[in-house]
């Protein structure tokens, strides 16, 4: 009848094993559905409430969300630190999401403080756009299902990310066939294999 399911909003996948129960202060926001209501953001309950609460974690289903709407939402959440994107748009649609040089986008690119991101089976195209949008990312978590090769995505992050900041990537789920140690590229990074996840860190 009511919502009480264990919401995956704690971003525990970004914690180290020794601190899996780390408590993150601040509130989380979970959005599951279309956000057309944000078209008129000053006159509805969502924008008003979001301004009242210090939200620093967001979990959102993206496949029906336009980039304009998404950025408008993110601008309402200036203290956002961690984001989980579920059902990313396809590569074709991602190409259409070339960032327009609007005031909203400029403000978003300057102000967003997001350092943690969680994705499921991202492609290289999707990852490229995400790295362009969220320039302060330091911690990446990927849920991997079978038959998906995440190595191009990992290479993309480790090549493009800001090397001034340490980078941490956690991959969990179906880890079969993710043989990183056999590639020279990954030699320069610390790879930690744990029971049900692989962590790759820059030194």
């Amino acid at each position, binding site marked *: 009848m009511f919502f009480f399911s264990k919401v995956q909003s704690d971003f525990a996948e970004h914690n180290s094993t020794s601190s899996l129960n780390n408590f993150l202060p601040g509130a989380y926001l979970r959005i*599951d559905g279309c956000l057309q209501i944000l078209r008129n953001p000053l006159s509805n309950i969502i924008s008003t409430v979001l301004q009242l*609460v210090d939200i620093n974690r967001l979990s959102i289903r993206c496949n029906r969300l336009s980039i304009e709407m998404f950025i408008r939402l993110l601008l309402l959440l200036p203290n956002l630190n961690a984001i989980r994107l579920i059902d990313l748009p396809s590569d074709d649609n991602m190409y259409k999401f070339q960032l327009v040089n609007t005031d909203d986008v400029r403000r978003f690119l300057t102000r967003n403080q997001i350092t943690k991101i969680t994705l499921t089976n991202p492609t290289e195209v999707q990852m490229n756009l995400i790295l362009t949008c969220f320039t302060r990312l330091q911690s990446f978590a990927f849920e991997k299902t079978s038959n998906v090769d995440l190595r191009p995505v990992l290479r993309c992050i480790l090549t493009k990310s800001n090397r001034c900041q340490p980078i941490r990537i956690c991959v969990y789920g179906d880890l079969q066939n993710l043989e990183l140690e056999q590639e020279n590229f990954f030699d320069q990074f610390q790879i930690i294999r744990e029971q049900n996840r692989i962590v790759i860190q820059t030194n």
Partner: protein
Amino acid sequence: MIYLLFHFQKLTRLRSLNIGLDSFFDNLGDIYHILFQFSTLNYLKLTIPDNELLDIDFPMSNDHFSSLKYLIVNHCVTLNQMIELLQNTRELVQLNCCHVVGLEDDIISTKSVNLPKLKRLIINLNDVDFDEFHGFLIKLCSQLEYFTVSIEGLDKSYLDGDRWEEFITKEMIHLKEFQFSFVDFIYDPITDPFYSSISRFASSFWIERKWIFGISLKDGYMTYSIRPS
């Protein structure tokens, strides 16, 4: 049904009973009265899917105390009916009230409720004012360690984080775990002053206990929730 229950009463080792009725039109008090006489029963769940509110009247003299430790009331009930039900259930450790509804102008009963062993309360409220629920909760919450409340309704005062903080600090000093959800319609106008108190759910009181405040948006509804980390 009542005839069947009289037969069950002879089962001297009966510990657990889960009853589901497609529908029921008589006085539910008769059923509970018999079930409360079962001397070995620890667990009772009574489910009636109909959303009709039924009478729950007990016999005037009823001084038999039930052995029940776990009671799940899975049918429509008011808080005053719950108070009547709880008059003879001193041994309760856990109480689930799955579908509590409010009645217009209902004033909470002055009867006391004695549940010294009640550790866990799970309750779903539909259109029950916070003042009314406050009057109910204060009767049985002193020993609670786990408290889950889900609310649907128009009374936005449930969103007053300071009021919950004060209530928990004063009346539920043993509380270890608090789960709360309040479902709001997105298109409702924000005219209520209690919206400004939402931010208080993220104050140091909640952070110290590692109780996380969250908002969930789905299908035109906004759910505010507190849950343990």
